[in-house]
């Protein structure tokens, strides 16, 4: 059992938790959080596989993960903004129907 295998399995476990959350959760906020957990699992997986050889670290997945983190933050912000906007639209339409 190498450390690469251990950490990539931990990443997969995070991915599994996130995947389950995305499918099961009914609230959008929980879905967004679960998507983030999924993303973190994938980042961890990539970084673990970058050090399959115990002596050499592959810098390419590290750069990929750095890019991915920024994109994940941007996507989360967009999703949360849309969620807030939908929530307000729901509220105002409910008040109008009353």
């Amino acid at each position, binding site marked *: 059992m*190498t450390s*690469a*295998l251990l950490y*990539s*399995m931990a990443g*997969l*476990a995070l*991915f*599994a938790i996130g*995947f*389950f959350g995305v*499918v*099961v959760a009914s609230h959008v906020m929980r879905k967004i959080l679960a998507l983030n957990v999924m993303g973190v699992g994938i980042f961890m*997986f990539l970084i673990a*596989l*970058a050090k*399959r*050889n*115990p002596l*050499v*670290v*592959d*810098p*390419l*997945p*590290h*750069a990929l993960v*750095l*890019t991915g*983190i*920024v*994109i994940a*933050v*941007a*996507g989360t*912000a*967009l999703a*949360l*903004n849309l969620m*807030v*906007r939908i929530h*307000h639209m729901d509220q*105002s339409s409910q008040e*109008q129907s009353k």
Partner: protein
Amino acid sequence: MFNKLDIEYDGPAVDKSALSLIASVLVVGLLLAVTIKIVLSDKGHNTGLAPLITQNIELSGVTNPITAVLLNFRAYDTLLEIAVLLVVVLAILPTRDHHAPFFKRIEVSKQNLVLLALQRWITPAVVIFAGYLLWAGAHQPGGAFQAGALLAGASVLMFQSDTYQVNYTSFMARVLLVLSLVVFITIGTALIWFEGSLLTYPLAFSGLLILLIETCATVSITLALASLYSSFIASENISVTDHKHRTIK
């Protein structure tokens, strides 16, 4: 009639979470099998692209392999990443009053003293440390994104302590938001004339050009992340005014 029956179906409910659990276990089991196969089959001899990167590191102008990949070997990815960040900011930023000043100091009224003191001590330190990270990115872990994230954290602190108000839709803010993309694209396309292909740095100036791009990227990333943070509060305010308009009608 059947339609009505369909709608009013109240038989034994299908347990959705059990089905999802089975689905996720299947997906993860498949991934687990593939991972074990990948990791164990090459017996630790696979080094990926590491030898290629260490061989060509002298050509990149920096000594940190991750920065070399991000800003030189795969600079195209970083360019598109900055573009994605800008697109998200453009999608989120509400079209607010863009004649308001970029930077406004709020008079002391209901400020939290603890946050205020914290902000006074921490913000200058964060600015210095971000500058160091930006500079250190050339030869050790660090770079534009880390520095930008730190500065965005400092601006969140300033936002929370209610001392300063930044108008992210002002002309100045817009210029700073697109600064890195403009500089990146200008340098990248200008290099077609000098070097013959997009984003191929000349060997003598590559370190300098990377530092220039990273400095602009730090400014833009800071503003982008801070504006994403402030957009939640802004969207609350906007919906309140919308609501008022609706009640007047």
